[in-house]
C-alpha cells in the first residue's frame, strides 16, 4: 500500500535483469552469501600450503578446498565476484530510488488512496475552505512540516511532509559501502608492509617503499615492567628520521603510537636483544677476575694457560627433550652459554672440553679444572627494536567510507520521512476535513505525533 503513495507512477517498463539487479531481494541474498563465505573462512584455516589441507581433510576434500580457492577465501574469485555483484546491486538500488523519487508528485495523489491509510481522522467545521487552509498551514509550519496545496472546485488537497533528509540516509550508506570496498581494493593492490629490525645506535635505510630515500635511526630502546614482576608494561623506541645524514625529526614510538613520515608509518611491533658477548668470572688460586669475551672469538685467559671460545648464549635456559637447549624467553632470566676450553697450543680434535655453564648455578654448571674455575656472570647485549613498516594508500578512503557509513546509518535510523495529507471538502452547510498520514518507519512514535497534530488542528478549526 505504501508504494502507491511514494512511487505510484513509477515506470512500468519491465526489464527482468534490471529489476533483478536493483532488487532488495538480491541485496539480501548477497548479504547472506557474503556472510556464509566469511564464515567458511573462519572454519577452514587460511593461507596454508597445499599439503596441509590434503593431510588435514584427506586428499579429495583438501584438493577441492584448495582448487576452489576456499583456502584463500578472502581473495578468491567467489568472494570478489560476490563483492562485485554487491557493488552493482548497491548502485542499481540507488539509481532505482532516484528514478522513482523524481516521478513523485504528492499533489496528484489519488484521493481514494487517503481512505486506505491506517492513520486518518475526519473533522468537521463551519468555516470556509480558505480559512481552514490557513489555520492548518499555521499548525503545520509550527510543527516544522513542509506543505503544498491545490484547489480543485469545492475540494482542497493539502500535502505536507517532514524529515525528508531521511531519504538520503540509504544513499549515504550505499555510497559509503562502495567507498569501503574500493578502499579494500586499494589496500590490496597498492599497500606494502614489511618488518624492520634496528639495533640500538644503528641506522636503517628506507628506500624500497618510498620514492625519496631516508634513514631511520634507533637512538634508544626502553622497556618498562609492572612493579615486582617481569610482565612487560610498555616498550618504547626513540627514533630519528635522517635525510642526507641530517636529523629531520625525533619521536618516541610505542604500541598504539606510531610514527608517520612521507606516507610511511612505523609501528612498534616487537623487540629483542642481540647477545654479543658474555662476562666470565675466572677464579684461580683465590684470585678472581672478570673478563668480557665476545661470542665466536677465541680468548686466551691471562696466566691460566687455557683458551676459551664461547659459541652460544641463551638468555633464559630451557632444556627440552628432543630439541636440546633453547630459550624460554628473550628476557635474561636464566642466562647460560656454551664454552669450549683447551690448553694453549693444543687445539686438536678430542683434546678440548666443551660444556654449558649457567649464571644461576655456578656450583654445578661451571668449568672446573684443578684450581681453575670459569663461570658465567651475565650476557652482554644490544637491544634491537622490530618495527612494522606500512604504506597503505587505502586507509584514508577506508576512514572516509566508515565516517559516511556511520552518518548514513544514523540518518536512516533516527530521521524518518512522514507525510500528512488534508482533504477539505465543502459539503452544504459544513466543511469536512479528512486528515490522513503515512510513514514507513517509526509507526508507533508517529502515531503519537499524529494524534497531537489532529488535536491541535481540532482546536483551531472550531466546531
Amino acid at each position, binding site marked *: 500500500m505504501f508504494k502507491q503513495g511514494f512511487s505510484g507512477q513509477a515506470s512500468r517498463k519491465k526489464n527482468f535483469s534490471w529489476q533483478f539487479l536493483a*532488487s*532488495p*531481494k538480491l*541485496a*539480501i541474498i548477497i*548479504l*547472506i552469501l*557474503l*556472510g556464509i563465505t*566469511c*564464515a567458511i*573462512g*573462519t572454519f577452514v584455516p*587460511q593461507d596454508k600450503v597445499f599439503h596441509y589441507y590434503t593431510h588435514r581433510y584427506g586428499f579429495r576434500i583438501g584438493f577441492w578446498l584448495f582448487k576452489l580457492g576456499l583456502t584463500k577465501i*578472502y581473495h578468491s574469485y567467489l568472494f570478489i565476484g560476490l563483492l562485485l555483484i554487491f557493488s552493482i546491486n548497491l548502485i542499481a538500488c540507488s539509481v532505482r530510488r532516484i528514478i522513482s523519487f523524481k516521478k513523485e508528485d504528492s499533489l496528484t495523489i489519488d484521493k481514494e488512496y487517503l481512505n486506505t491509510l491506517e492513520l486518518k481522522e475526519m473533522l468537521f467545521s463551519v468555516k470556509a475552505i480558505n480559512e481552514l487552509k490557513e489555520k492548518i498551514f499555521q499548525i503545520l509550519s509550527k510543527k516544522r512540516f513542509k506543505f503544498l496545496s491545490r484547489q480543485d472546485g469545492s475540494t482542497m488537497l493539502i500535502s505536507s511532509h517532514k524529515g525528508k533528509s531521511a531519504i538520503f540516509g540509504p544513499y549515504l550508506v550505499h555510497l559509503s559501502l562502495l567507498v569501503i570496498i574500493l578502499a*579494500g581494493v586499494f*589496500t590490496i593492490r597498492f599497500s606494502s*608492509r614489511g618488518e624492520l629490525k634496528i639495533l640500538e645506535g644503528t641506522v636503517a635505510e628506507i628506500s624500497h617503499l618510498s620514492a625519496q630515500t631516508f634513514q631511520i635511526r634507533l637512538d634508544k630502546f626502553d622497556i618498562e615492567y*609492572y612493579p615486582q*614482576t617481569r*610482565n*612487560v*608494561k*610498555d*616498550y618504547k623506541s626513540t627514533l630519528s628520521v635522517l635525510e642526507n645524514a641530517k636529523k629531520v625529526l625525533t619521536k618516541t614510538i*610505542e*604500541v*598504539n*603510537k*606510531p610514527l608517520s613520515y612521507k606516507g610511511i*608509518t612505523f*609501528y612498534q*611491533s616487537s623487540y629483542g636483544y642481540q647477545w654479543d658477548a658474555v662476562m666470565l668470572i675466572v677464579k684461580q688460586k683465590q684470585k678472581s677476575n672478570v673478563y668480557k669475551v665476545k661470542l665466536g672469538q677465541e680468548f686466551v685467559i691471562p696466566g691460566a694457560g687455557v683458551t676459551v671460545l664461547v659459541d652460544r648464549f641463551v638468555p633464559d635456559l630451557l632444556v627440552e627433550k628432543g630439541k636440546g637447549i633453547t630459550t624460554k624467553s628473550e628476557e635474561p632470566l636464566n642466562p647460560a652459554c656454551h664454552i669450549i676450553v683447551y690448553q694453549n697450543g693444543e687445539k686438536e680434535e678430542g683434546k678440548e672440553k666443551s660444556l654449558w655453564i649457567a649464571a644461576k648455578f655456578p656450583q654445578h654448571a661451571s668449568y672446573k679444572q684443578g684450581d681453575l674455575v670459569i663461570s658465567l656472570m651475565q650476557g652482554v647485549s644490544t637491544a634491537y627494536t622490530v618495527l*612494522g613498516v*606500512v604504506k*597503505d594508500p587505502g*586507509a584514508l578512503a*577506508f*576512514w572516509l567510507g*566508515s565516517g559516511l*557509513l*556511520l552518518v548514513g*546509518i*544514523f540518518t536512516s*535510523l533516527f530521521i524518518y520521512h512522514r507525510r500528512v495529507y488534508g482533504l477539505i471538502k465543502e459539503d452544504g452547510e459544513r466543511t469536512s476535513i479528512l486528515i490522513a498520514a503515512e510513514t*514507513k*518507519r*517509526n*509507526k*508507533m512514535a508517529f502515531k503519537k505525533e499524529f494524534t497531537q497534530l489532529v488535536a491541535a488542528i481540532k482546536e483551531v478549526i472550531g466546531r
Partner: protein
Amino acid sequence: MNTIINLATLLCYLLSSILYIIMNSKSKKKLFGKLATYTAIIGWLLHTVVLVFRTIEAKHPPFANIYEALIFFSWAIVLCYLVFEYRYKLKTPGAFVLPIALLTLASARLLPSGYKVAKPLLPALQSNWLIFHVVSAFLAYACFTISFATAIIYLIRNREIFDEISYKAAGIGFLLLTLGIVTGAFWGHIAWGRYWGWDPKETWSLITWLIYAAYLHARFTAGFSRRKAAYVSIAGFLAMLFTFIGVTWLMPGLHAYK
C-alpha cells in the same frame, strides 16, 4: 564486601525475573510490574558498583577477560532493557530479558577461579580505544539481545508492538555494532597499521553485521512478513552469540581473552 554486593546483584535480578514472570501471568499486573522494575533498577545500581570496584581492583576498564566481559555484558543488557521499558512503557519483555541477564551474570560467577584473576593489560590493550571499541560493541550486543527477546515474544503473541521494539533495538544495535567495528578498525590501524585483518572476531562481527543488514532490509524494502523478519533477527542474535562466546572459546586470534 565485594562478594556481598555481587550476591545482592544476583538476588535482585533473580527477584526481578520472578516478578516480571508473575506480572505476565497473574492479575495485579500494575503492582508486580512496578516491583519488578524497581528491583531491576536496584540490581543494576549494585551491578554498577561491582564494575567500579572491579575497575579499581584491576586498574583497568572492566572488560579485559571473559569473566569481566560477561559481567559487563549482563550490565549492558539490563541498562538497555530499562531504557527500552521506559521508552515504550511495556514490561512484558522483562520476563525474558532479566533471566538472560541473570544467567549471564551467574555464568560469570560460576567460572573457575583462574578466569577471575585481574591481570595487568598487555601493551597493545593500553589505549583509550579499548573503551570506545568495547563499550560500543557490548551495547550493540545488549540491543541485539533485546531485539531477540522481543522477536521471540512477537512470534508467540503476535502483537505488532513487539515487532516494532525488535526492529528499533536491532537498528540501534546495528549502528552501535558499526561503531564498534569502525573503532576497532581504527585501533588496529594505529596499533599494527592495518584496519582489517580477517581475525575471527572481526570476521564474525562482520557476519553479524551482514545478517542485521539483511534484517533491516527485509521488512521495508524487500517486503518480508513480520514473522519471517523475526526469524532473521533471531539468526542475527545467534551470530552475535557466536561472535561473543564461540569465537572466544573456539578460534585463536587477537581477540582471544587471555
